């Protein structure tokens, strides 16, 4: 009798509190590691006895390490966010489509992140910076709620040193903030983009992705070179439970990364 899909055990080797409710867990395999994860893909993370949630992979390491960034918003994610070093978690995956950073080679890579949307994009940025000469400009525009809720804040300097142009804007500044204040789309006009040679990767709340994509289209970037990361209720991750449907797409298999050319008509339908 062949086995069902069982989670692999991973140990929490380290954790970083990105914000008051968001944690990046550094996971090392205990059992056979899952296959190599591409930026944009996700795993199903299991907290013993509580449940599983889909979490984007925010980074990978040379020895099958996984970095996954989780926001505490419910029972499972609260348990994951409370996991300290040594704790065992279950991991299934990787599932889904990836950002396909390689396809942006030879041109400009634009990364637009809203809130925790930076987590699924981080892997794409790190990959692009690792092969810096494959791209012309690498422009990263980040929107955060407040300066304290900026994830991966500690890495921005390193990204800039590696050759990325990074601009951060906040919805609400706190005292001492000297950066941009406004929504992330307000940074697009100031970025001097070259639409004919730009591939854009967008991740954040669905409204933010729609508005950003629309502004990018208005600037002349074609829909097939704009990619977004979609989210729906996910249970199995293997295209068998039916929950993650968005029209013809099964997001665990045909997403989460979807070209805006495909996504735009679907997002326009209410309650799809």
């Amino acid at each position, binding site marked *: 009798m062949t086995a069902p899909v069982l989670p692999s055990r991973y140990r929490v080797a380290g954790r970083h509190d990105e914000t008051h409710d968001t944690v990046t867990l550094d996971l090392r395999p205990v059992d056979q590691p899952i296959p190599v994860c591409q930026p944009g893909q996700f795993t199903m993370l299991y907290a013993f006895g509580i449940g599983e949630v889909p979490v984007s992979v925010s980074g990978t390491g040379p020895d099958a390490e996984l970095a996954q960034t989780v926001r505490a*918003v419910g029972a499972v994610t609260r348990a994951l966010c409370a996991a300290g070093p040594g704790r065992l978690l279950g991991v299934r995956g990787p599932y889904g489509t990836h950002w396909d950073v390689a396809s942006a080679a030879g041109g400009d890579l634009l990364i637009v992140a809203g809130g925790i949307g930076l987590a699924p994009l981080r892997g794409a940025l790190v990959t692009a910076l690792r092969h810096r000469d494959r791209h012309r400009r690498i422009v990263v525009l980040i929107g955060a709620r407040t300066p304290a809720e900026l994830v991966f804040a500690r890495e921005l300097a390193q990204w800039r040193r590696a050759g990325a142009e990074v601009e951060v804007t906040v919805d609400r500044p706190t005292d001492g*903030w000297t950066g941009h204040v406004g929504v992330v789309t*307000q940074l697009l006009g*100031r970025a*001097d983009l070259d639409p004919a040679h730009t591939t854009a990767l967008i991740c954040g709340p669905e409204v933010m992705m729609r508005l950003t994509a629309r502004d990018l289209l208005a600037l002349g970037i074609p829909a097939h070179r704009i990619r977004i990361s979609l989210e729906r209720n996910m249970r199995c991750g293997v295209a068998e439970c039916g929950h993650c449907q968005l029209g013809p797409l099964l997001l665990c298999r045909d997403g989460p990364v979807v070209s805006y050319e495909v996504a735009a008509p679907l997002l326009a339908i209410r309650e799809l």
Partner: protein
Amino acid sequence: MTGPGTGVSQPSAGAGAELGGHAFLRGLPDSYLAVLAGTCRPTAVREGYRFFTEGDTASLFWLIRSGQVALDLDSPGRSLIVETLGKGDLLGLSWLVPPYEWQFGAVAVQDTTAFELDAAAVRAACDADPGLGYALLRRAMSAASSRLRAARIRMLDLYAAAGGPQDAP
């Protein structure tokens, strides 16, 4: 560097063409650009320079060419930043709307260059030529609409954790 607010316009040859390169005035006919060039001069300021304070008369306005300007409101013990503007943005909307008083303050948070225009002169030129007035109002409306959209989106607080998630509480 020349400071603003001296009230003396120094039109220069080619100023119209330079103005036409600014994102806010993109597509404006040359004849209108020439009129505006007559009320306009380039300016550059240091970080920390205050363009105007809430309540002041809006006698000038600016088209930002580089740098970053923060719109702010004063409050006892703290300064509140409403929004930051940068390259390509119009700085100042209240010069178009009576009683022509600034609703917010504006301060350079980086060294900033801009075109500075005389509000009263521009309004007079628009009264004299409604075509120019309409062209400018449409562009100002577009900027205002864009900022209103952004402000509404910020109010929605989309990055906040939504109550109750996929994994049931």
